[in-house]
């Protein structure tokens, strides 16, 4: 069987994307395009559209809140911020991420 490599890579990115959104927002509030630029820089996002359903779901799950801010150019911007619940979830994810890295590394480097 030939594995669909691109699909595997996409699945890997998808898995960590929600975690990275929370991590980026923990360093300061941001609007969608700031997030996009950071995530695209680190090649975590291929198409921009991926971000919006995730943001909306995290907001609906109470992990994020947002406020509108006027912009000097273009439409008003929706700034996202982590909520208390978002910070707790991020802590848990960070712990499980470290655990995951350790186990993957120990398996791969055996």
């Amino acid at each position, binding site marked *: 069987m030939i594995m669909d490599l691109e699909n595997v890579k996409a699945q890997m990115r998808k898995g960590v994307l929600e975690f990275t959104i929370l991590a980026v927002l923990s360093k300061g509030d941001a609007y969608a395009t700031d997030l996009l630029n950071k995530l695209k820089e680190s090649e975590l996002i291929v198409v921009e*559209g991926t971000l919006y359903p995730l943001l909306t779901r995290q907001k609906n799950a109470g992990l994020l809140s947002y406020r509108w801010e006027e912009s000097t150019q273009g439409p008003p911007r*929706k700034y996202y911020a982590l909520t208390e619940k978002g910070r707790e979830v991020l802590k848990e994810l960070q712990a499980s991420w470290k655990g995951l890295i350790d186990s993957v590394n120990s398996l791969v480097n055996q």
Partner: protein
Amino acid sequence: MKKTLTINLANQVFHIDEDAFLRLRVYLDRIEGHFADTNERSDILSDIETRISELFSQRITQQKQVIVIQDVEEIIRIMGDPAEIGGGDQAETKDYARVSKPKRLYRDPDNRVLGGVCGGIGQYFKIDPLIVRILFLVVFFGFGIGLLIYIILWIVVPEARTTTQKLEMRGDPVNASNIGNFVKDEFETVKKNFQGKKK
């Protein structure tokens, strides 16, 4: 010279070519059809429209005041196809369950020799209309009632005129995503025919 339209995207005004508008309309409809949950959908759609509006503004200058189809194509590549965007998987199944309707028998105007009866029957049973036509001819010459049955069906069975009816004829659920796909197909066909004529 080209005709342009004026659109309001996330409260910003843009002048856009007619073909570019059509392409954008179909794209946004497909995104809308991708997300079934109405609460999520309006938020996601408004975020995406805001971003597209931002990308449009970057493509407007004093020298180029109109959004052209290349801009729209480029932005669709940046934003991604609804299938790539993902996150709609679970929602989509719900969507299908809710709006899925039983198939209906229509006459198929796009696949007709006389009235489109055989084409429609072929669509209904998912068989090649040619086989249906041969069967009709056999019944016609063998028993002499084929023509009568055909004429009755021609009168009784309605023709699939609208997009909704055509989707019902094929047994596809009628939702925004399917209508979007269908309109896109039709649009491509018209475009191909048009380009064919120009050559």
